[in-house]
């Protein structure tokens, strides 16, 4: 591999990396937006709240992301024609929502029952106990698996290449088809992924230490 020659291609990858970051960020935000209410729905004792959540989680976790992406991009066309970027972000968001819901639910359930009892015994309402006592502790526990999920989301954003979003993978394939350097282009994309996942890991680690530093 001629590295000086390869560096010429890097500028082509910068907008692609930016696109990957955009899909991922939007996907995670949509995922959090869906995941939180779904987690609480799943935990509810009321059937009309818990059943839809359970159904959503089962449906999303039981089918491939690629299929979900095609459903949004090709399948929904008769209802609403979404551009490639919003399609990819929406599919990634809906997909991650299910996993985030399960992470949050697990974290909330992992908090000792005595915490809720102590809060309620002081006269706090269920809502107060949740927001003041349970959720702050649950969030700390949810952070590592959430960080993990965010990294998966970043890598899963590569599937957006199948619906013509010019992110890292599609860009490397398009460049290779004109310069016949498939291996090299894929390697550049890989380096960009490593940088992005590395940065994301640092960010999550930073949050973790920031949140836990006070109670050491």
């Amino acid at each position, binding site marked *: 591999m001629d590295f000086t020659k390869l560096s010429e291609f890097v500028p082509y990858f910068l907008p692609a990396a930016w696109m990957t970051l955009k899909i991922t960020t939007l996907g995670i935000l949509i995922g959090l937006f869906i995941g939180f209410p779904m987690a609480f729905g799943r935990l509810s004792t009321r059937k009309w709240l818990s059943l839809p959540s359970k159904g959503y989680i089962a449906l999303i976790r039981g089918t491939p992301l690629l299929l979900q992406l095609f459903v949004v991009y090709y399948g929904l066309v008769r209802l609403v024609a979404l551009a490639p970027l919003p399609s990819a972000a929406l599919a990634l968001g809906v997909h991650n929502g299910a996993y985030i819901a399960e992470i949050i639910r697990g974290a909330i359930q992992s908090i000792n029952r005595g915490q809720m009892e102590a809060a309620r*015994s002081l006269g706090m309402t269920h809502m107060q106990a949740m927001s003041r*006592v349970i959720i702050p502790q649950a969030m700390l526990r949810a952070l590592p698996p959430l960080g993990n999920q965010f990294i998966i989301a970043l890598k899963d954003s590569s599937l957006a290449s199948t619906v013509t979003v010019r992110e890292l993978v599609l860009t490397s394939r398009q460049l290779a088809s004109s310069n016949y350097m498939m291996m090299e282009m894929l390697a550049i994309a890989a380096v960009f992924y490593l940088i992005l996942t590395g940065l994301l890991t640092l960010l999550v680690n930073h949050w973790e230490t920031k949140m836990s530093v006070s109670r050491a």
Partner: protein
Amino acid sequence: MMIQIKDLHKSFGQLHVLRGVSLNVEEGEVVVIIGASGSGKSTLLRCINFLEESDSGEIFVEGNHVHHTERDINMVRREVGMVFQHFNLFPHMTVLENVIEGPTQVKKMPRKKAASFAYQLLEKVGLSDKATAYPASLSGGQKQRVAIARALAMEPKIMLFDEPTSALDPELVGEVLLVMEELAREGMTMIVVTHEMWFAREAADRVIFMDEGVFLESGTPERMFTEPAEERTKEFLSKILASPNT
């Protein structure tokens, strides 16, 4: 009458844990409930502040019938402080924050006022120097004393203690019992589930022996410890008093 319990029943599935328990506690009275594990002592305490829902029976606090409604239950919980076997301090809050959480959130007391009251309470349990510490850095005995201060911060009329020293190392039991004894001397109405016979002897007005979901016998600590009427009580006491921890 501070608290009145009439014919309380509670089952967990097939297990009939409370089989018709009735109890009257006067203002300022200290009642100690003893009995083997599984006899229903803890369940009784937990039914009083509705951490468990009883199947039947009635509870009156200061003459008011407590209904199974969110509103009534929250009212009772404000009046009734609870201290748990495993402390259940909030680990993400400092000692001070633990103590002011109830007053500021439930009573909407201004933070400053709550904090100065909290310092008084921490002083009383001997932990004012730990106000800014997190629970993780405290010993079990200190945690339980914070938990007592946290419950007292709501200015309850009754305090329930659910085996408050059972999870403690033996050398830390004394400091918690001393705080409880002082509280009893100040006239706090208390219902205490414990195996600490020393505390029962020193502080209790009445000792109740509970067995298989009913009150088998009750009396002053002197009578209960020297001349128990029931065979089961004798048996239980001889076992407890023979153990090295008491």
